[in-house]
């Protein structure tokens, strides 16, 4: 009886070890989904410009590390510019990557897939602004993505 119980314990322990090993193995290769912030610019009948903002956290780990304090947008001639203020919630220096994607008035992406990830370093509890300019005058909406380095 004792021997059987022991071997069952070993089986359970073995299974647990396999599960942990598999989890670690997967985690080693996975890329993180991160934070997404969107801003859409609209004009009312009087011609006043406004920006609708929305922030989505897809990654709870990142939510504890970073905060999007503010999103602003302005026009440089007919081209949309945007700025996001990010704040680190951590006391250590953290590396991130970010990229902007741009959409036109009908929600179609401009130069689809052409954007590149840019590195960003946030020192402990530091707030930093990142800026981007739309590729052309069609842009009305942007999406900011932030993730941990791959």
């Amino acid at each position, binding site marked *: 009886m004792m021997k059987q119980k022991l071997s069952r314990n*070993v089986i359970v322990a073995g299974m647990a070890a*396999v599960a942990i090993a598999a989890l670690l*193995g997967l985690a080693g290769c996975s890329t993180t989904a991160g934070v997404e912030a969107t801003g859409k610019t609209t004009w009312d009948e009087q011609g006043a410009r406004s920006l609708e903002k929305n922030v989505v956290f897809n990654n709870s780990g990142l939510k504890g590390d970073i905060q999007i304090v503010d999103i602003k947008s302005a026009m*440089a*001639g007919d081209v949309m*510019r945007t700025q996001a203020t990010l704040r680190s919630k951590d006391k250590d220096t953290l590396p991130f*990557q970010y990229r902007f994607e741009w959409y036109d008035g009908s929600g179609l992406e401009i130069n689809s897939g052409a954007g590149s990830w840019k590195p960003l370093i946030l020192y402990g509890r530091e707030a930093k602004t990142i800026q981007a300019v739309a*590729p052309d005058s069609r842009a009305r909406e942007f999406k900011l993505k932030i993730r941990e380095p791959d």
Partner: protein
Amino acid sequence: MKIEMKVLLTAAVIGAFSLSGCASTMQYGDAGSAKPLTTEFGSSDLQQIAEAMVDSMITFPPMVEMTASRRPVVSVDKVKNKTMQHIDTESVTDSIRTRLIRSGKFRFIDRTTDAQTIEELKTQQDSGLVDKKTAVDFGQQIGAEFLLTSNLSEIKQKAGSTTDVYYKFTMSLKNLKTGILEWSDEKEIRKVFKRGTFGG
């Protein structure tokens, strides 16, 4: 005891399989990836430089004013590569030129394809194959109003197991008539490599 051995063996096999998920594989990567592999000039550095230069140029207030009503014609000069590396600097200026053209603010002339242009015009004029009414005459091209010039330099420092490389890309837009630099900006990139205690 036999069961224990079996369990351990299974665990080892499955463990090995799960690890092999990270062993040598071949796959497509993200062309916009910002993962640095060495301190050498890489694809992400090129993309960062191109985006920074174009963003700065098309939002510079005098440029916004100038491009509001017309699309100035620009020529691109070769990048002065002052680094110790062999870098395809034409690729950097190509990226910048492409982005500027796609912004709809500037037009470009391309001096690198002049030989082919001359050959084509000669054929149109002299071969007798082309209808004279549609043949393009020599001396009709538009002269560039501006010249885009750039410099790439590096400062490399090495101390013990740390290599620190600083890149600086400077770009200017020169008015060919007056010689005045109408716009200029620079992008700095720092890459630090620390060699681990164990190999790598």
